[in-house]
């Protein structure tokens, strides 16, 4: 969704005058004495492609089922388009859901599956037919219209489920791990297809996934969850570059984490990490207090590797190469510092055999700029 150049950036969440389509306000959901969702508040705007990301069991499906109306919040409010959803049953919400299992009706053809919701609205036969044809075209399943769900492939079933949930033109489409059952290649293709369809239809999508790459690829904003709590809501770029916690930094992509204590806080923040070593300099990732426990987070691709000591950089450490991984487009070096931590560093292979002059056991210097790393509490 990130647009570049002159085009206006899609960021309604930054506009204070924009009214969110969905307001989740202080929602808690308990099953018995187990808290599945813990005081979550999120605003989701029109035409967003919003991703709920978190490990299995963190409460993503539960949150989604509350939006669809299959679960009621134990506390808090959910409103859609200004209307409180408290007493609105699932069949009266302008919300449709694409189920994790697809939940296609096995006794109905692809055509009848897609027509199912339209017929419940009492549309005329012609209107139903026109809309079904439109949906079949959108997901490119025209020639499979007469087949039963068990006569088509997994990828096709996924598209039928998508078409069926889009047919009624809901204000909000919920997708619960929509690509979870597909193999990796089909998954990546389908991600772009989903984005395409989302853009074409202008529907607000909320997608649940435990795959961080998928969330980063498709979403306008990502909400990272853990144990029923919301940890951070931001654009994929912000989630990656400015995670607000060690949890988010670690969950998204590769990261080196070095533990220590907060030193001086000025332009940036210092992390004291080893006796007799210069403090590491980085951006404060959240509110910090001097002396408290903190972790330095630095992405492997932001670290430079050199044989000589780079005197122009404050953040520099020396270590010994433990391991080299050659991945074609880039090489990764695992460098062990004398203090113990192993730092991973990734270098692009721009020209052939460039930089392959390092080998195992070599003493090397790792360095990065003052703004490349983050100092995170905890």
């Amino acid at each position: 969704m990130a647009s570049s150049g002159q085009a206006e950036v899609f960021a309604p969440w930054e506009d204070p005058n924009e009214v969110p389509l969905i307001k989740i306000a202080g929602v808690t959901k308990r099953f018995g004495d187990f808290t599945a969702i813990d005081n979550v508040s999120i605003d989701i705007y029109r035409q967003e492609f919003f991703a709920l990301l978190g490990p299995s069991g963190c409460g993503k499906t539960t949150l989604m089922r509350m939006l669809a109306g299959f679960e009621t919040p134990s506390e808090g409010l959910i409103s859609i388009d200004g209307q409180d959803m408290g007493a609105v049953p699932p069949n009266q919400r302008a919300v449709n859901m694409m189920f994790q299992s697809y939940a296609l009706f096995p006794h109905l053809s692809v055509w009848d599956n897609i027509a199912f919701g339209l017929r419940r609205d009492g549309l005329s036969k012609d209107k139903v037919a026109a809309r079904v044809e439109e949906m079949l075209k959108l997901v490119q399943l025209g020639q499979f219209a007469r087949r039963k769900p068990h006569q088509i492939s997994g990828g096709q079933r996924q598209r039928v489920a998508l078409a069926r949930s889009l047919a009624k033109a809901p204000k909000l489409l919920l997708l619960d791990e929509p690509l979870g059952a597909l193999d990796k290649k089909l998954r990546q293709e389908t991600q772009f297809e989903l984005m395409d369809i989302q853009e074409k239809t202008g529907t607000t999508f909320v997608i649940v996934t435990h795959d961080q790459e998928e969330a980063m690829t498709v979403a306008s904003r990502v909400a990272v969850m853990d144990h029923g709590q919301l940890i951070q809501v931001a654009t994929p770029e912000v989630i990656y570059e400015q995670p607000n916690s060690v949890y988010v930094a670690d969950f998204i992509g590769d990261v080196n984490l070095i533990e220590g204590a907060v030193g001086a806080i000025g332009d940036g923040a210092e992390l004291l990490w080893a006796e007799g070593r210069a403090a590491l300099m980085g951006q404060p990732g959240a509110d910090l207090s001097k002396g408290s426990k903190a972790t330095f987070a630095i992405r492997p691709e932001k670290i430079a590797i050199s044989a000589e000591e780079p005197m122009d950089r404050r953040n520099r450490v020396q270590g010994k190469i433990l391991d080299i991984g050659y991945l074609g487009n880039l090489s990764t070096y695992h460098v062990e510092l004398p203090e113990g931590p192993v730092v991973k560093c990734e270098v692009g292979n721009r020209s052939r055999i460039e930089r392959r002059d390092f080998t195992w056991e070599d003493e090397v210097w790792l360095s990065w700029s003052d703004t490349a790393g983050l100092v995170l509490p905890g």
Partner: protein
Amino acid sequence: MRRLLVGIPYLWLLVLFLVPFGIVAKISLSDVAIAIPPYTPTLDLSGGWSAIRAYFAELDFENFAFLASDDLYWKAYLSSLKIAAISTFLTLLVGFPMAYAMARAPAAWRPALLMLVILPFWTSFLIRVYAWIGILSTEGFLNQFLLWIGVINEPLTILNTNLAVYIGIVYTYLPFMILPIYSTLEKMDGSLLEAAEDLGCSRAQAFWLITVPLARPGIIAGSFLVFIPTLGEFVIPSLLGGSGTLMIGKVLWEEFFNNRDWPVASAVAIILLLILIIPIVLFQKNQQRQAEAEK
């Protein structure tokens, strides 16, 4: 070894179905006689080729012609069909909600509930039907209970009526209806109903549009499993039914044991079997289709 395994069911079919069927078919073409066995001709192989020819020459379709001429028989067939159809419908009416409740019960309870459905098979069928006499008779438990709570002043006559036959059949064949319906409902993915609701169905609509069609193979299988044996049912109508209860199973019994007219009784049985072929074939088709759908 494989051939042996495949062969066993065929051997079974041959010994337990085709041979008896052949014997009954032959008797149905014979004439009644005061002899042991009470029909003629009987095959005497010592007489040689001509005796065999004479034996076949004596076989004819007289008994079938007789069945067609006396309206007792076709009325009994029709009445049996009617009673079987009504009983099947009533069993479905009682059995479906039970199967539905079982499939919806917490998974931990289901084995126990299944056990309860199967449990009656552990005592003799005859004893259970006799127990119903004790319940339904004029002085029976049901009447005593109804009189005690004051719903009625006079005992109801239930025993020896068609109503008692229906009660007996529904009671006896209920497990055959519940089990196949339960097995289709239990396999049903609960998210289908949520999907239906999500797409705008009320709970009741979702039941008719999703649950019932998905349970259809079970409903059909259960209905045939009740209909087929009920059509020839003899014990229940003769113990619980009255003189007004006309069923072909009872007629068959009377021809065999009261009139000792084995040839006519055999003809009655052959026609009953021919009638049953239709639902049996339909049942097989249903089972096949279900097996294919599950693949």
